[in-house]
């Protein structure tokens, strides 16, 4: 091939007819390629062998507590937004055996599972989810004790990002500075263009590895007009985002309002079902279950996704600290938006909207924040009004 070599930050053009070659290049390098595919009633993340595994021509419609897939009259690969799954499905398994042990007389012996994981190539990662992966990196590997299971899966993944071509009904990434434009953390970033019967991708090179993979398949260097077309796509998407969250002083706002009546209101609606934490791409809590078999010769320790919405989560001798739904909802929201900042230096929320869509009763984190903020402002306003009244 005679195409010129590619440098980081350069942009190239990939025709959709060559997309399969991109997947083949990854498979050939030994990656386990995963990405969006049509599941039962939703676009989910699963193994991709062929370009036809992508949800071609499908999109989704989302609002609080509601998700529907819809067939469209086009051949778009990525004209959907984020669905019920997130990439933590692969990096942070929902159920994981940590070890097993066998009785050996009066002692026991650990049987180590030599975890062999094929490196993942993630196809179609959105900006919010790249941010979420980097947040979980901090959680699992940022401190003194790195989680070996996470590290093993995370190291050497390939990220093929996609700039969102449409915003979902529950997205608010812009407010969280997490999208919609993919800004870093990718090997290759695509913008999908369907125009006048032509279907192609504008590809931004993020790493040498990305450049190398693209170099093996037919591409051309993007001209200014094509680069501009990519900018227009994300700009339009940004304009479509209809949800927002005012994050100014959010930490203080929530810390000052632990007793705000809005928490009681949310608690009336909240089912404490934990769906929001399960779908959240940054939530990282787990519980541990130790099991033995009937013979007592074998024991195993399992780690499973847990949630601050369960009673056991805050159980210490004698009872659960957070026994009310109010205290659990408050824990969840203040962790995502405030205490996370103290703990990890960033927000725990990337504005992906999953917790809003997949909450069975449509509780909306952005609405809860604004309700608290509004009445806070009213109190402040009232005070000034009061002062003015006194003055006059």
């Amino acid at each position, binding site marked *: 091939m005679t195409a010129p070599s590619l440098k980081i930050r350069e942009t190239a053009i990939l025709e959709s007819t060559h997309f399969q070659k991109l997947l083949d290049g990854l498979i050939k390098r030994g990656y386990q390629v995963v990405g969006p595919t049509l599941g039962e009633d939703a676009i989910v993340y699963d193994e991709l062998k062929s370009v036809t595994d992508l949800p071609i021509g499908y999109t989704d419609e989302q609002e609080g*507590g509601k998700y529907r897939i819809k067939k469209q009259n086009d051949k778009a690969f990525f004209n959907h937004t984020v669905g019920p799954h997130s990439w933590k499905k692969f990096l942070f398994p*929902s*159920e994981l055996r940590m070890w097993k042990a066998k009785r050996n007389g009066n002692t026991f012996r650990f049987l180590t599972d030599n975890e062999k994981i094929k490196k993942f190539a993630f196809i179609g990662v959105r900006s919010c989810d790249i941010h979420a992966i980097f947040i979980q990196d901090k959680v699992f590997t940022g401190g003194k004790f790195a989680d070996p299971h996470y590290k093993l899966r995370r190291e050497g993944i390939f990220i093929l990002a996609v700039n969102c071509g449409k915003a979902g009904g529950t997205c608010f990434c812009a407010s969280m500075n997490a999208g919609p434009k993919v800004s870093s953390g990718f090997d290759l970033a695509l913008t999908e263009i369907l125009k006048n019967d032509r279907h192609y991708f504008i590809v931004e090179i993020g790493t040498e590895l990305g450049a190398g993979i693209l170099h093996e398949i037919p591409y051309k260097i993007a001209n200014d007009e094509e680069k501009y077309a990519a900018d227009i796509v994300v700009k339009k998407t940004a304009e479509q985002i209809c949800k927002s969250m005012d994050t100014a002083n959010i930490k203080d706002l929530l810390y000052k309002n632990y007793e705000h009546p809005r928490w009681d209101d949310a608690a009336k609606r909240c*089912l404490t*079902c934990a769906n929001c934490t399960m779908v959240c791409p940054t939530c990282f809590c787990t519980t541990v279950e130790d099991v*033995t078999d009937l*013979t007592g010769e074998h024991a195993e320790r399992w780690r499973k996704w847990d*949630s601050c919405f369960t*009673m056991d989560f805050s159980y210490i001798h004698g009872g659960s600290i957070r026994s009310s739904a109010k205290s659990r909802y408050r824990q969840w929201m203040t962790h995502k938006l405030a205490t996370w900042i103290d703990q990890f230096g960033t927000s725990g929320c990337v504005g992906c909207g999953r917790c809003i869509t997949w909450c*069975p009763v449509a509780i909306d984190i952005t609405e809860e924040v604004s309700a608290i903020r509004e009445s806070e402002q009213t109190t402040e306003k009232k005070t000034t009004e009061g002062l003015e009244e006194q003055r006059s």
Partner: protein
Amino acid sequence: MTIKRKPKLAIWKFASCDGCQLSLLDCEDELLAITNRVDIAYFLEATSTVRKGPYDISLVEGSITTQHDVKRIQKIRQNSKLLVTIGACATAGGIQALRNFKNVNDFISLVYAKPQYIETLDKSTPIANHVPVDYELRGCPINKRQLLEVLSAFLHGRKPNTPSYSVCIECKRRFNVCVMVSCGIPCLGPVTHAGCNAICPSYHRGCYGCYGPMETPNTTSLSSQFSQLGLDKDNIVRTFRTFNAYAEPFRKESEAYEK
């Protein structure tokens, strides 16, 4: 805790369909291991050989529906170190507790040719209404994996892993797509006790609540969501009135919609 002699196990039946006991017989691969570790002293469903108590562990299936049952469960309690109720009948009164919402004599006169021969209590009630219960295993029927977990935990002196959070947690750990959010199918998962590994949503149906109420069920919020999904009052009553109709949170919710 090490028990030198084999612990004695008894399985008792009250008003029930036998389905939960069958879950024990269904442990085909593990049955041998069970009999190696425990001495099955009373299990009429499997053998007519009956050995006398006291028993180390009694599994109790079924609800209390007659005066005779009341006396019998008290005797069983006196004879058992550990009493574990198995299934929706024993823990909540079962499907037969539907009669608790009406006058039982009306049913008797309709169903039986000679009602004078029928002697029954006016309500079908859970075992715990009559004697102290050490442990409850939920489900209609119980899940054999959970039964083995409870038996293993008992044998090795550890806490059984039978969490009381929502079915949704199991559903999401399996990466199911929520049927309520993606299809508008009413699902009791958010208010139902885990344990089945979200079997119904895995087969694209809403949860029927056969494990009964979870630890902190917000039935009021869920049924107002059901209304928004188009369920009318009668259907909301029916949704909460199945195997665990008489479990308090479900009972109260159905009664609220009956008015």
